[in-house]
């Protein structure tokens, strides 16, 4: 049966390549080849590096690789061609199926790339004087860990996430990944690599060495220092545990039937299926559909980087030190992001009648409308804050920056929630060009715009002052304490103003329903 399954897997692989017209598949393949080549070249260049540095990088890279194998299939939601569930109908014994499917899992393009990488790693280890059998054993353990992780992750993905898996969910996963990966990447890249392994990384590497993620990659170095048995045991145990998990998962997948109602449910609802079925959840889903599809919202988003650049460039020209200018984008981006939804109701035009006639509670309306800006804003800030800190050159300002960002972003959101219920002003209608200026009767909206901006800055003043003191302060201890207090003050201010804003805005929305309707019909 093993031979059968391997043949099947091979045929599937060839078929998927030969399928023809799969532009995406071809592009993906080319990208994979390029990335693999570059990575292999990078790994091979470590052969000349100092042993510690090479070791640290291999452990770090290997750990990230294993983590990627564990999360990738779930996050991307790719269909597994050899999904164990498909073999459920043949009545094969799990004892035979489990190893056969695991072996067949070795035949895939990503695993080929992984193999190439591992060969390079073995070469590097050998160049650093590791005995070839040890190096090959370690690489094999790494390979087994990666492949089994990926296989298990695939099955978990289909068992748990498939019923709800959708483009939207993948998007959210990718965003979450972005929030984690980008700051970490910026942090690692900004470290001083010139002389030796940077201080913060050295600790991380030592810690990783004794975890399931890093153990296999640590093995050659550990053998040299004498702790080989211990690390080897961890690596073998990891592989064994993954094998046990794989056995259980295959048994589950082949013997369990999914509830048939689950597949049809939520079909075609997109974001609505993903978010809770409450008024607030539905409004959030609707806002997301609009926010991501309607050009009027997208154009607004473009303002944010433009504003940041507009402020930064003149200051640089005027001779303000670059390390201070580098910090400016954080408050500006946070403020503008929070300010964006201050006229959200107007964008609904007369369709807002559904909320009013439906008797939607104001708070639910307010909360739901914040969903898209939170979904965009938090990842954006997660990128801007570390980049700013890296450009500034001193990571100790990070807590203060997070505090500033939280305070400005969240309190502007809170004030926007009030403004959009109390003082909406006319905007381009749905379907019109976002640049078309509407006829405006009465309020031009300047007041609302200004008040939200100024208000957010005013309530954030304490945080800004604290941060300023911590950044310009001389004493290191004091400034880091100030930085931390700025973080907590900022979070407190932001969350507080947001809650108050949502409640007051909700109350106003309930009270002013008819006036919002009159506004919508005349605008």
């Amino acid at each position, binding site marked *: 049966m093993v031979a059968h399954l391997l043949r099947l897997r091979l045929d599937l692989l060839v078929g998927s390549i030969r399928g023809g017209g799969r532009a995406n598949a071809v592009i993906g393949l080319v990208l994979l080849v390029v990335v693999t080549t570059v990575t292999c070249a990078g790994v091979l260049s470590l052969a000349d590096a100092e042993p510690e540095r090479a070791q640290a990088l291999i452990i770090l890279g290997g750990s990230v690789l294993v983590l990627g194998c564990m999360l990738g299939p779930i996050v991307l939601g790719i269909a597994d061609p050899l999904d164990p569930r498909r073999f459920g109908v043949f009545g094969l014994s799990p004892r035979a199926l489990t190893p056969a499917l695991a072996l067949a899992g070795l035949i895939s393009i990503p695993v080929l790339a992984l193999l190439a990488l591992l060969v390079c790693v073995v070469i590097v280890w050998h160049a650093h004087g590791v005995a070839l059998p040890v190096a090959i054993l370690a690489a094999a353990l790494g390979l087994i860990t990666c492949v089994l992780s990926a296989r298990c992750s695939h099955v978990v993905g289909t068992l748990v996430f498939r019923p709800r898996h959708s483009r939207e969910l993948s998007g959210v996963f990718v965003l979450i990944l972005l929030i984690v990966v980008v700051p970490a990447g910026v942090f690692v890249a900004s470290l001083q690599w010139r002389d030796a392994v940077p201080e913060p990384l050295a600790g991380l590497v030592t810690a990783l060495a004794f975890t399931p993620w890093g153990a296999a990659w640590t093995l050659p170095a550990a053998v040299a220092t004498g702790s080989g048995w211990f690390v080897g045991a961890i690596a073998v145990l990891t592989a064994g545990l993954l094998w046990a998990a794989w056995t259980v998962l295959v048994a589950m997948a082949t013997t369990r039937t999914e509830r048939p109602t689950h597949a049809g449910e939520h079909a075609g609802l997109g974001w609505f299926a993903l978010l809770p079925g409450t008024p607030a959840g*539905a409004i959030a889903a609707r806002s997301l559909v609009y926010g991501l599809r309607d050009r009027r919202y997208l154009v607004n988003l473009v303002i944010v980087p433009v504003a940041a650049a507009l402020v930064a460039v003149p200051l640089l020209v005027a001779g303000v030190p670059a390390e201070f200018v580098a910090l400016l984008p954080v408050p500006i981006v946070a403020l503008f992001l929070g300010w964006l939804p201050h006229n959200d109701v107007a964008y609904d035009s007369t369709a807002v*009648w559904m909320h009013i006639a439906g008797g939607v509670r104001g708070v639910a309306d307010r909360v739901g409308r914040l969903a898209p800006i939170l979904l965009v804003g938090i990842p954006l800030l997660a990128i801007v804050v570390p980049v700013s800190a890296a450009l500034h050159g001193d990571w100790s300002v990070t807590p203060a920056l997070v505090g500033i960002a939280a305070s400005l972003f969240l309190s502007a959101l809170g004030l926007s929630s009030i403004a959009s219920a109390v003082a909406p002003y006319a905007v381009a209608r749905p379907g019109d060009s976002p640049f078309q200026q509407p006829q405006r009767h009465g309020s031009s909206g300047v007041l609302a715009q200004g008040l939200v901006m100024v208000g957010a800055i005013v309530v954030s003043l304490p945080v800004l002052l604290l941060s300023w003191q911590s950044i310009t302060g001389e004493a290191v201890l004091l400034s880091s304490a100030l930085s931390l207090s700025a973080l907590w003050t900022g979070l407190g201010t932001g969350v507080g103003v947001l809650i108050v804003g949502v409640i007051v805005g909700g109350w106003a929305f309930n009270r002013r329903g008819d006036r919002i309707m009159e506004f919508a019909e005349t605008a």
Partner: protein
Amino acid sequence: MALPRDDHGITVGAVEERFTPDALPPKPPLPLSVVPPRPPLPPDVEIPPVPPLPASAVVDHPITDDPITDDPITDDPITDDPITDDPTTDEPDLADVPVSGEPVADESDVDAVVAEESAPEAIVEPVPEPAGTALALRGVVKQFGDTRAVDGIDLTIPTGAFYGIVGPNGAGKTTTLSMIAGLLTPDRGSIRVGGHDARTESARVKRMLGVLPDRLRTFDRLTGRQLLYYYGVLRGLKPVVVETRIVDLARAFDLTDSLGRPVSDYSAGMTKKVMLAGAMIHSPRVLVLDEPFEAVDPVSSDVILEILTDYVSHGGTVVLSSHSIGLIERVCTQVAVLVGGQVLAEGDVDEVRGELSLEQRFFQLAGGLVDVEGVEWLHTFSD
């Protein structure tokens, strides 16, 4: 207990008498079960999912078999009127709701819309509200700038009525219906729905209403399915209930094939249908429909009519406006003629039209045809 007990007894007796099995003509299975029978429940209680319809029912139903002409509706309000039951049974807080002291002795009397039997009233209301009133407008005024769109309207719409509002362009029909729907607040006067004041108990009143506005946008970037889901969940229904009802409504309104497309791609008539389906999804007590048949094709409008008729026969109330007087005459049990923001005539269709046809009567009330002058240049052609 606002109703005298013996009155209640009479009513129930009448019900039993009416509904002996042989007294009822065998009813053909209609595709009308979309709207489940109105149970006398508080509106937030979950209503069991609707049974699926026969797929072919919409098509088979011949147009000639119009259930409206043989008007069974007039009999119904007493029998399964949920709102009359409310104060007596499960809503003790309504004990102060003004209910006319007159027992509803004779069934035919109930339909007389302007049943002006006065009874001593609560201080708030100058005019009494007869038992079984779904909707009561008293002295409602709405002013936009200098123009009085609605100028002191009194309307009393009994439960189970199929109520039409007709009027020339700009007569204030849409404004009136918007105020009923809670989208606008009257400058003066009061609106009561099922005995609840729309101003002070707006959340409760809004739950009882299903609304189809005219010329207001909807969230048309959503697909049909998403839009209906949105309607249902905004009304506080559970997602599972919403999804089963979407299937039923889509079948009844012949939208099943279009549910996956964005509503912005729909034709005007289909948009109307999907919005009407959305207005019904929470099975409201009163449907407020502004021009429900505009741009809807004849077959669909017949299906909609059947759904509405069945809804009414199970105790629901429909208030609709239309330009099409013929349709109103054919469908509605009661009618109000609105001209210049005022009600010029109100009551049973027969009462209002008198000897004339409703259209002739309408022209009489609305001022009729004016001799068109001043466009004589149109009589010669410029090319």
